[in-house]
């Protein structure tokens, strides 16, 4: 995985966020992550899929098959209630973590 380090669990929380507005297929999830982070995280696209399957197995995502905007059959993911709870918890945890680190880095010299 090139680029800046992806903190453990970061990809999971981004995926959960990406599908939080409704059923989304893998490609759209990847595109959303790329665009919203300005390619800052540089997730290798392939790494997304095992993560999606893992989240599905854990019961955080639910799959459904539908026809995409291009007319091709595609696999869609959506949040389960457990997934939504997980997203909320992870987001809060992430923010608190980021705030703490930011505070420390911005601290004035002693």
């Amino acid at each position, binding site marked *: 995985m090139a680029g800046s380090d992806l903190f453990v669990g970061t990809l999971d929380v981004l995926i959960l966020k990406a599908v939080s507005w409704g059923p989304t297929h893998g490609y759209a999830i990847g595109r959303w992550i790329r665009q919203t982070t300005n390619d800052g995280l540089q997730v290798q696209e*392939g790494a997304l899929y095992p993560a999606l399957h893992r989240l599905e197995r854990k019961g955080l995502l639910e799959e*459904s098959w539908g*026809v995409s905007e291009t007319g091709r059959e595609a696999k869609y993911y959506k949040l389960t209630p457990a997934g939504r709870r997980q997203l909320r918890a992870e987001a809060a945890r992430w923010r608190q973590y980021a705030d703490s680190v930011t505070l420390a880095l911005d601290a004035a010299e002693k």
Partner: protein
Amino acid sequence: MKKLFRLSVGERGVRRDVSSEIGFHIEMRTRELVDAGVPPDEARSQAVATFGDVGAVEAACRDERRKHVRERAWREELDSVVHDIRFAVRTLGRSPGFTATVLLTLALGIGANSAIFSMVNGVLLRRLPYANADRIVIVQHPVASLGIEDAGFSPPEVSDFAQARSIDAIAEYHSMSFDLLGHGDPRRVQTGVVSADFFQVLGVKPLLGRAFTVGEDQDGAAPVLILSYRFWVNELGADSSIVGKTFTMNDRQHVVVGVLPPLPSYPDQNDVFMPISSCPFRARPFMKTTRTARMVSMVARARPGTPAATVGRDMAAIESRSHAAYPDAYKGLSDAAITATPLRSAMTESARPAFLLLLAVAGLVLLIACANVTHLTLARHLRRQRELAIRAALGAGRGRLLRQLITESLLLSLGGAALGLLVARTGIGAMSSLAARFTARASDIVLDWHVVLFTLGVAVVTGLVFGIIPAFVDSTDLVSRLRDGSATSSGAKLRLRSALVVGEVALAFVVLVSAGLTLRNLAKLINTNPGYDPQNVVTAHVDLNWTKYKNSPAVRQFASELMAGLEASNGVRSVAIASAFPASSSSPQNRNPFEVRGQLVADTLRRPKAEVTYISPDYFRTIGAELRGGRSFTESDRDTAAAVAIISESAAKRYFAAGDAVGRQITFDNGKRWLTVIGVVGDVRQFGPTADVAEQLYLPFAIFTVRDVRLLARTNVTPAVATNLIRQTVRAIDPEQPVVDIQTLEQARRNSMASPRLTTVLLGLFAVVALAIAAAGLGGVMAYSVGQRTQEFGIRMALGAERSSILRLVLGQGIRLAIVGLLIGGLASRALAHAIEKQLYGIRGTDPLTYAGVAILFVSVAALACLVPARRATAVDPVSAFKAS
């Protein structure tokens, strides 16, 4: 966007889904690149490149996917089991009558088995707490002609047997009682006297301290003591600092070196153990060299893999070499044998047949319970036909329905088992105290996890049996039921249920007959004329300390003071001292060959034999035995030169012509001393009612004085008061003299019947349960049959049939079923008669009175059980019967 659920479960589906998903990604990416102006052929390879290793990603996805499928299948399975259980609980809750009946029936059926299994497990199956248990053999020296089970061995003989090649170790043992002083009151302790390696041979590691060490059993070794667990806990409050403390025994200081773990009371219930060098009797110098000084037992450890029989043969060969080498030492022992018994058999042999019989009968009770629950379930299914049919119509497959039914029955059987364990738990205390009288392992009768596991196994099998049989019968006509929704093939089902009931009655008959036989047997034992009057006599064991009462005059002095003191007490009618009393032991203790003057027999084996008891003059008056001729002993019968004897009636008949015994002379020592027979006394059951009448000789205690005596007192007062009198009188004469084993003559007699008593009590309980279940089954079938024939009865009554004839019709049908069952049960009982006969003393296994009694009882109970449904049949209203159809 059309949603469709598809979690593909097959491997092919998994592959297809994953590659389609990733293919879609590549395609979308390519398209995006093309839209951004990349040439199409370049766009695709760029899309693949940004994706990464397609193959690796697909493989990772497939792995996740497969895991997902597996986990999901498990969850679904679990969910459906939980659902089945919830549903079963709800359905069973809706028919509380059925549920309660089944639970009760199973609790009794399974509980009986758990209880008996806990006995079998504790006594027969549990590992013995000896590391070398499987290799330990008990070597004995029976002499058939003397009726002696073990003549014992002398130390020189033990040394001979130690050479046997089939063993790798041998230890000697005997047990005596001594006074133990120090740490509280003086105590009379039963003492195991052993060679130093005794505990190593058995494979016992002391709980505290150490075992005896090499040399501690040699002359001059410092006296040491090892305490039994029971003695240490009960008498010394489990004092953890006991090792190193001292006790005085036989006027010597003994240091405690160890405490044993809990062990079975085998061969005796010893309080403490000491090495042979500390035993004042065993340590006498002549013991080392005198081949006839047979006072010890032998325990040998067979070489690994060597059966006990081989050890026996080996030792018998050594024995016959000794017979040839030392003929003088084996006079009168020419028919002595050597037996080697594995430790486990030696400890459990006496209990085994009774326990196995009980286990078998408990199994029958469970079968009866099973049959009854099966047909209760059948009846219930009939009531649920519509429900089951609807569920089948709604798409529940046959397998699914079957699983639901089996879930219900398993739930019931497990519930029954839990209640059954409670039943067993309540019974275990009583059982182990009864069993304690005939097996050393009674304290091992506990509800441990073996018993729980056994119960669980029984419950599962039971649940499957009564779950599957009715379900199988039902599923055959599930389809026809669907078609018309009415009760179908009820005729076939009635036949099946009738067969079940006949089976129940037959099995219950077998159970009742076995209970009846043991009951009659016990009654016969109780009613056996014992030849003495066991009422109002208290006995006590007074074993005088040999260091204090060194010679016979001292013992006689103590005895006469004791008797005089008691006789002077209020409420005491007569007092005696004797070396034994009726039922004080269950086998000969002192059987001796003798000769009659004028009828000398050279071969000791062919001489007349009798059990010899030493008694004070009032012995017969005290126990209530009747003099048949001549006179009893008096105070003046103390002249050693003109010794006298009294003979029992059966011995007099056997060895003398009628009425000829009195005045004749006998000798025990080849004529060195002659004793004149002065009286004949009626036979008493010396070894309890289960043993045959023994030929007996009584000799005066005043001449033949022993230290280990029994005191007997016939009183007008309660046993508790008499016990106090005895204790007080002994204390007044010698405050250091312990008095043990105080019991009434009646208690001793009852104790000698402990085994038949336990069997009778348990079989009696089983019989009650079996009868109740079978009667309930019969009543149930009749009720069902009456329900089926309501219409028929209505027609009959409309055509003018009397109510009494309907009553007779139904009763007749029920009793016919019962009689078929009785006939089958009778044949089965006859076939099994020999198995139970081993437990019977006075009656045969085919005792007609028992069979007839049980049959009459059964027919009456069957009639009663059918009366309720029969009365309902007579109450049928013809009009409504027609309307209902």
